[in-house]
């Protein structure tokens, strides 16, 4: 082997980038409380949990009230309907996109819950989405239900009048 770099190699200049690929695989443990939420989805239901201290209902619950730090132990079956508290219309394509743009991504506050969660809104032109809109969950066919949010196909408008701002202003 030569003692020095060949002229060619020396002329290549400094190395400015070094790629060091890393891949690790992990298991995920939903936990006791989140498992109840996932089992609920498997049955086409939204299951939440109530904090014994402040009475807030979390969906999904991770097993504790993040405010009080105490275990949430009381299961609460939530409604299939809720209110859009805020939303965005996605117009930008990105890698791995599975839904045709434009589409609506919204925070939905299920009736009976004290936290909203993210849902896809369909069956409505994107320029008609608005805060306060009442929506209902559309589930996959019963035989396709799994313990996953993929069991919820999307939310769609109900024909109820919009919710009063006061009913969801705390959840924006």
């Amino acid at each position: 082997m030569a003692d020095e770099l060949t002229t060619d190699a020396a002329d290549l200049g400094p190395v400015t980038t070094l790629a060091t690929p890393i891949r690790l695989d992990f298991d995920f443990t939903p936990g006791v409380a989140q498992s109840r939420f996932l089992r609920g989805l498997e049955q086409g239901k939204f299951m939440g949990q109530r904090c014994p201290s402040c009475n807030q209902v979390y969906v999904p619950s991770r097993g504790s009230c993040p405010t009080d730090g105490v275990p949430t132990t009381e299961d609460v079956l939530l409604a299939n309907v809720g209110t859009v508290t805020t939303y965005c219309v996605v117009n930008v394509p990105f890698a791995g996109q599975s839904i045709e743009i434009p589409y609506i991504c919204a925070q939905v506050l299920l009736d009976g819950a004290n936290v909203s969660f993210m849902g896809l809104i369909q069956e409505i032109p994107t320029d008609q989405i608005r805060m306060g809109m009442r929506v209902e969950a559309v589930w996959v066919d019963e035989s396709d239900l799994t313990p996953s949010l993929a069991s919820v196909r999307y939310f769609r408008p109900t024909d109820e009048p919009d919710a009063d701002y006061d009913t969801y202003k705390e959840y924006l």
Partner: protein
Amino acid sequence: MSAAARTVRPVSIASFAQSQNVRKDDERNEVEGLMPVIAEVFGNIGITKADVGFICSGSTDYLIGGPFSFVMALDAVGVWPPKSESHVEMDGAWALYEAWVLLQEGEIDAALVYSFGRSSLGDLNEILTLQMDPYYEAPLWPDIVSLSALQARALIDAGKATEADFAAIASRSRRDALANPKAQVRNDTAPEVLLADDYVVAPLRRHALPPITDGAAAIVLAAGDKALEWSDRPVWITGFDHRMETHSLGARDLTSSPSTAKAAEVAGVAAGKIDIAEIHAPFAHQEIIVAEALGLDDSVVINPSGGPLAANPMMSAGLIRIGEAAERIRSGQADRAVAHATSGPCLQQNLVCVLEGA
């Protein structure tokens, strides 16, 4: 500055709790595993979160494979009433150090420190590779067992230890763990029997490796009146220091631990007789290196809890050493103890905490 010249505010280990250490907790998430530990560490001394002025945690996202797991873990403590809070991407022993430093300033009198880690979610041996230099070492995926085996080999080659010594340490650790219901590997197996184990990576046999452990731990620190109010026999931290060596393994003498020795000097380990030592040496041979660096003589009882060879919850095993040492002083089994925590490959970074009874 010598230890004697340093003026430290007396801070006590007021309460300690740890979870059951298990190979894999696949029912509970991090928050659900942590909540009972936090409840116990407060419950031991009849206090609540309202009684502490600072919260500090130790954990790493690399174990769970997701970002900001320490923020999620705060759900186990709750955000109301608001508390000053911090986190270290390190073993909880370093979170304890941060809280101790804050207590030195005198503005607060009590702090909660906790740590958690589930080593079972990924391939721990591979995950720990990522603590290496990311350009020249990590891409080669030198796993932690192989690196530790290099260190053990160097120790044997230097005439400082034999494989039989490693087996004796493992045998003693597992036997002592029989008295520790929270430990994971508890049995009475003679060293000769352990020496029949196969090599995992020579010269390390199965028993010289730590178990893979899911677990969590917590400590409440108290100063001033609260230390006396919360304990009949306060356990005082009388010396505390941590030091680090270069990340480059090739530049280190792996058979000694100058960072431990320096931390021990600053913490004042030699200022009095040590009754027990809780040493965070995940691999059996590392106990020999750390004990030498701490300057321990043969009279010192090492790892009466069983130590990390009996339960090694990542991110908590160091904090647990401090808690276990404190419990032995509180119970009257010891008057003066040293606890040690390590981080990084082959004992790269080391923390030393000296504890004394009132």
